[in-house]
């Protein structure tokens, strides 16, 4: 019973840390998943800003990126896929309904780049791009709004009164990090978008997939060099961003959280260690006679020291183990109640075990040393 109370400090300390770490790393993991669900190894090239009479537009406002740019990027060595992107909001009519949504002009590589898949039907092809086909891929939200009761495949939707045939439906992906509904979208071949819907000659941006996560920076630099060369402009009239930037920001936030937790952990473990030292001092006093007996039958000072150290370490290690179990249990319980993801990092478990053992050694050392310095005659006489 007393041992349990002694361990409580370490149990609570370790448990709190493991629980909190599990929940935060669960949340971090969720964010990271979302970031990587935007597509891995994706580089986005935005066109430059547009300045007119002192008024400066945002990125993408200036017509600087062309299809030729996109094709040039395609030929770079570390680039796996390219989709020239044209964006527009349109009122869509179909099935006696109408709905305002974003209409994207893309290449057939779009699902691959952004890590999306087609739930039913098929993506339009390069052939469709060449022939300015009136084919459309629609998202789940659009399906729900326009075709609540019927299979949308093969149906006709009207964009600016032009009939497009639905050839595929995207697998739902939900909201992205910025709260945008990724399923409220209609995707058509970029050529059809540029010639039939908007009659635009410039791209909003270019989506690029690097060949691997190792070549992403290389590809980014190559794209920058290529476009600078092609545009021959003093100030770059475009920007190149990648997902790694976003990932970096997210993980730095979670690192800060980690340091905070480590601080809390250190405090609670120190408190736990003081508890163990206290009880070990009491134990040494209570067992003075036992120490005397052991010394009389030939225990060396080191034997006594090791015995009490082992007891202290055992106490704190058991406390640590219970704490880990409690922390994992707590985070699982919270996770299932609040429907949050939880991940218990193995590294933190190792840290918890190591630090609780270390605390046993540190806080047990003084009492053990005191015990080992007892005079056997005095200890035997102790009542």
């Amino acid at each position, binding site marked *: 019973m007393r041992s349990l109370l002694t361990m409580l400090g370490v149990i609570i300390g370790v448990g709190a840390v493991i629980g909190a770490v599990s929940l935060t790393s669960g949340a971090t993991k969720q964010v990271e998943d979302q970031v990587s669900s935007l597509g891995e190894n994706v580089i986005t090239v935005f066109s430059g800003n547009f300045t007119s009479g002192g008024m400066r537009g945002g990125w993408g406002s200036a017509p600087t990126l062309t299809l030729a740019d996109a094709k040039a990027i395609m030929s770079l060595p570390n680039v796996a896929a390219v989709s020239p992107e044209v964006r527009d909001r349109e009122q869509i009519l179909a099935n006696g309904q109408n709905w305002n949504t974003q209409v994207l002009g893309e290449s057939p590589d779009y699902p691959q780049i952004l890590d999306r898949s087609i739930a039913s039907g098929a993506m339009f092809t390069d052939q469709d791009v060449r022939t300015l086909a009136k084919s459309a891929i629609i998202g789940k939200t659009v399906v729900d709004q326009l075709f609540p009761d019927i299979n949308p495949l093969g149906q006709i939707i009207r964009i600016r009164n032009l009939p497009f045939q639905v050839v595929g439906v995207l697998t739902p992906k939900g909201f992205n990090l910025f709260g945008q509904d990724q399923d409220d979208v209609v995707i058509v071949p970029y050529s059809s978008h540029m010639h039939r819907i908007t009659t635009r000659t410039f791209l909003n941006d270019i989506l690029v997939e690097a060949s691997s996560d190792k070549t992403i920076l290389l590809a980014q630099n190559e794209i920058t060099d290529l476009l600078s060369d092609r545009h021959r402009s003093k100030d770059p009239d475009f920007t190149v961003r990648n997902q790694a930037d976003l990932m970096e920001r997210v993980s730095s936030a979670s690192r800060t959280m980690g340091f905070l937790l480590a601080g809390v952990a250190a405090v609670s473990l120190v408190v736990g260690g003081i508890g163990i030292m206290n009880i070990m001092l009491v134990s040494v006093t209570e067992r003075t006679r*036992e120490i005397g*007996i*052991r010394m*009389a039958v*030939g225990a060396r000072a*080191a*034997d006594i020291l090791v015995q009490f150290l082992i007891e202290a370490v055992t106490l704190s290690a058991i406390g640590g183990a219970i704490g880990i179990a409690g922390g994992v249990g707590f985070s699982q319980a919270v996770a299932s109640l609040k429907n949050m993801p939880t991940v218990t990092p193995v590294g933190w478990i190792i840290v918890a075990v190591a630090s609780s053992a270390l605390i046993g050694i540190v806080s047990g050392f003084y009492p053990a040393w005191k015990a080992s310095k007892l005079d056997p005659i005095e200890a035997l006489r102790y009542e």
Partner: protein
Amino acid sequence: MNAVIKLDEIHKVYHTGEVDVHAVRGISLAIIPGEFVAIMGSSGSGKSTLMNLIGALDRPTGGHYWLDGIDVSTLSRDALADVRNAKIGFVFQGFNLLPRTSARENVEMPMLYHRHRIPPREQHARAMTALEMVGLSQRADHHPNQLSGGQQQRVAIARALVNRPTLLLADEPTGNLDTQTSIEIMGVFQKLNDQGITIIMVTHELDVARFTKRMVVLRDGKIVTDEPVPNRSLAGLELQRLYAAQQAVKLD
């Protein structure tokens, strides 16, 4: 024959407070293997101090002490611990068993501190042999609080024997026991002595001392008499006499 114990002009002075206490003032003594010696004296006679010195729990401030040929008076703390472990078996007045630990585990305890590791199987066997010698092998798994005083003292004797010491050192071993149990314990000592084990016993009771073979009486830190015990008591006879006396007053 080589002496098990040879004390040569042993002195012990305690520096406590302002006055130095001269507890042992020049004791010389030799004890040969197979002896059964009682060290007697009233309190303050220095017998406890002498006992601690003989038991290698303490070092003399003057003189030399050879235990089994080793000059113990100059050894370090750890070396003293090793000497106690290998050469001396202690039996205390208060039994000094570890609670919450079975009799057998108590007996095995000194073997944990042996300089040469003893395999657990052998520890077990030796503990059982030692318990058999004191007639307690059936109670090996009992805890001290399940045993009577006499039985606890037998466990303590078994613990003292388990490392096969050259000397058994008993400090008032019957001080906490009634007459009958005291005689039984003395019987155990006599039996062990008959098997050749050297025993030194500190006591202040003459009745108990009469079970030994040699009586050394101390006063003021010096030996006043050192002579063989005449008409030595034998445990078996004394027990019969006690029963007879109990019968006479119809105690049972």
